[in-house]
């Protein structure tokens, strides 16, 4: 499937998988694809994305936050309270013995292995975004899929994992229009 991908788009997909692995996620999702594109995009596309505040650093920070953030802790605390376990008390007790961040940093500190290396499969949302990127390339009569098409694919796919990250910075319609303009200009 990747033979129609331009070099930068291939790099974006590879980086997406790398990011998923780094974040210890089970699948490569549309959010990781976005992260890959933000790093692989060059020139004008990069300028457009950065102009909206969409950079790899901000998006990665956001993802890392939601992975280990208070939300999952609070959800787990609620769930455990239903079986009589006070997660906050457990965390406090760990903090007293092993230090303030010992609970949150348990996995980083323990030397526990990360997921095995190798390809992480694409989520449904990511697959859809890739398919739609191909369609965007065809629709614009481009003979290869570039990062611009990947962004359009991600946006059109509508997978909430990526859309949420984008709309923190820019309206979807606005981003789409800016990229279509880039493509039209290049054509």
């Amino acid at each position, binding site marked *: 499937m990747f033979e129609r991908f331009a070099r930068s788009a291939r790099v974006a997909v590879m980086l997406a998988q790398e990011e998923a692995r780094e974040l210890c996620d089970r699948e490569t999702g549309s959010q990781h694809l976005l992260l890959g594109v933000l790093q692989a995009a060059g020139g004008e596309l990069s300028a457009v994305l950065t102009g909206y505040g969409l950079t790899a650093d901000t998006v990665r920070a956001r993802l890392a936050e939601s992975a280990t953030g208070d939300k999952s802790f609070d*959800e*787990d*605390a609620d*769930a*455990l*309270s*239903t*079986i*009589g*376990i006070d*997660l906050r008390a*457990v965390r406090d007790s*760990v903090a007293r013995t*092993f230090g303030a961040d*010992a*609970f949150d940093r*348990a*996995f980083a*500190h*323990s*030397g*526990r*292995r*990360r997921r095995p290396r190798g390809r992480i499969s694409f989520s449904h949302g990511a697959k859809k975004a890739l398919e739609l990127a191909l369609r965007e390339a065809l629709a614009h009569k481009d003979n290869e899929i570039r990062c611009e098409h990947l962004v359009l694919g991600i946006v059109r796919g509508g997978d909430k994992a990526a859309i949420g990250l984008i709309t923190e910075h820019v309206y979807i319609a606005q981003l789409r229009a800016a990229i279509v303009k880039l493509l039209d200009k290049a054509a």
Partner: protein
Amino acid sequence: MTSVSELSDLSLGPAAEAAGSADPAVGLRAVRALQRLQERLEAIHVANAREQGWSWQAIANALGVSRQAVHQKYNRRR
């Protein structure tokens, strides 16, 4: 000071009541959260044991698993 009646209130509060919840969503979510807590506590205590000089074999014995299992899970080369 905590009285005996207060203690029993704690153990038989809403928590204990929900432990037998018939709603699968509630029960399964609790199980999943418990798994996550278990993984986390295991990581903390394995790291602590290693820092205190415990062998992989000793840790494995304490956890009731094979030495290989512990070693494979935690011995990341850094």
